[in-house]
């Protein structure tokens, strides 16, 4: 007759015996060791947005939606432009109608259920347009929360979503501090800006960079010291969004104002 102590011992040995060989393989997996040694790579994509140059035409948003097959009339977009109007008495009004797909064509500011806000031009202290897109963070919160390994970061720093692997749980949509993720209306999986991965891996620029008539958007490789974007980031006063989250965002802004969230 087996007693309780014996049963527990044997059960632990059996369970340990099943688990141990798998973990042993994991520790000595030569592929993984190699990957960790060579983890650096020659490319790390970064983005530079010059707020002083943006006029809010929205050509970037239009080009992005067409290039990346995001349904044109659905109210979702991988990149968008926000308008900030700060009055002289310190009030800030922000809008981004349709993500600025059609640009900003009226002085009235869309305040959702409060209607269109008209501001007397005399009262405007400052106003500017802020393009937003995925920050391709060095510590992407959206990747950490994915329970199935459907979203991940490539060696060159781009966070991608595996559409055949995503289960649509929405953790990443909630986890992103910048709100860049949404559900794709056709594929019903998480969708996000990937710096036009199909273009940059061919040596092209992103669709939004090519569409911008004012040079407000630029893409570069931070590991290349000769890259003009790298030179600006390392020598000029650039800023990032929500630095306090510790995500190490890789979209840098020139002329960022404190009103921008």
């Amino acid at each position, binding site marked *: *007759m*087996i007693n309780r102590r014996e*049963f527990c011992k044997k*059960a632990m040995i*059996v369970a340990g015996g*099943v688990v141990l060989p798998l973990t042993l393989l994991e520790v000595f*997996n030569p*592929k*993984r060791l190699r*990957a*960790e040694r*060579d*983890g650096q790579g020659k490319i790390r994509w970064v983005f530079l947005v010059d707020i*002083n*140059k943006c*006029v*809010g*035409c*929205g*050509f970037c948003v239009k*080009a992005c939606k*067409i*290039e990346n097959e995001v349904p044109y009339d659905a109210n979702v977009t991988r990149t968008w432009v926000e308008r900030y*109007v700060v009055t002289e008495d310190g009030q800030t009004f922000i809008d981004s109608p349709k993500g600025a797909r*059609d*640009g*900003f*064509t*009226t*002085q009235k500011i869309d305040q959702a259920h409060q209607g269109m806000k008209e501001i007397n031009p005399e009262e*405007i202290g*400052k*106003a*500017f*347009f802020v393009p937003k897109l995925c920050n391709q963070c060095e*510590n992407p919160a959206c*990747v*950490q929360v994915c329970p199935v*390994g*459907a*979203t*991940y*970061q*490539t*060696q060159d720093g781009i966070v*991608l979503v*595996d559409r*055949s692997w995503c289960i649509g749980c929405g953790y990443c949509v909630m986890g992103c501090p910048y709100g860049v993720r949404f559900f794709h209306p056709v594929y019903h999986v998480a969708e996000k800006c*990937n710096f036009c*991965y*199909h*273009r940059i891996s*061919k040596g*092209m620029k992103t*669709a939004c960079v*090519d*569409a911008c*008539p*004012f*040079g407000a958007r630029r893409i570069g490789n931070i590991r290349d010291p000769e890259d003009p974007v790298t030179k600006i980031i390392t020598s000029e006063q650039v800023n990032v969004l929500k630095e306090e989250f510790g995500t190490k965002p890789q979209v840098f802004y020139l002329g960022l104002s404190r009103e921008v969230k």
Partner: protein
Amino acid sequence: MKNHVWRPLYIVIVIVGVILLARTLLVPEDFGIHERGYMYGWHRKSNEAEWKKVRVKYKTAKVCAECHVDEYNYIKASGHASISCENCHGPAYDHPQDPVGLTIDRSRALCIRCHSFMPYKGNIRSSIPGIDPEKHYPQAQCVMCHIPHNPKPMNQKREAKS
């Protein structure tokens, strides 16, 4: 040891075995830890290639210039030089094979993306020649009077001046 101890243990072992077998069959071979380590690089490697295969729609103005060199040089000498051809002519795809022709956006909505005036001091939007779209010939298309490839006011179409 008696059977009533071993029997449930066998069942557990079989269940674990089935789960492991199902896992090896269902999980693709290239699924695992890649360059970015366990926390950020846990994925199916071949998905990277799938993203790289997405069709390029916007081919950039350089490709336009390969054939339409006159039009290209014409707009490059104008105030609209910095606007990419495809912003108004639409994405090239594989033009001229597919599609044969491009749909040009001649709408008023396109022009006022930049030329609707905004009274924003210090912002370059206010330095772009702008109109109030509700007051400046609201019924007309901009291209009825203005030439998009050569937009200075004195280059307005002759019919518009008379």
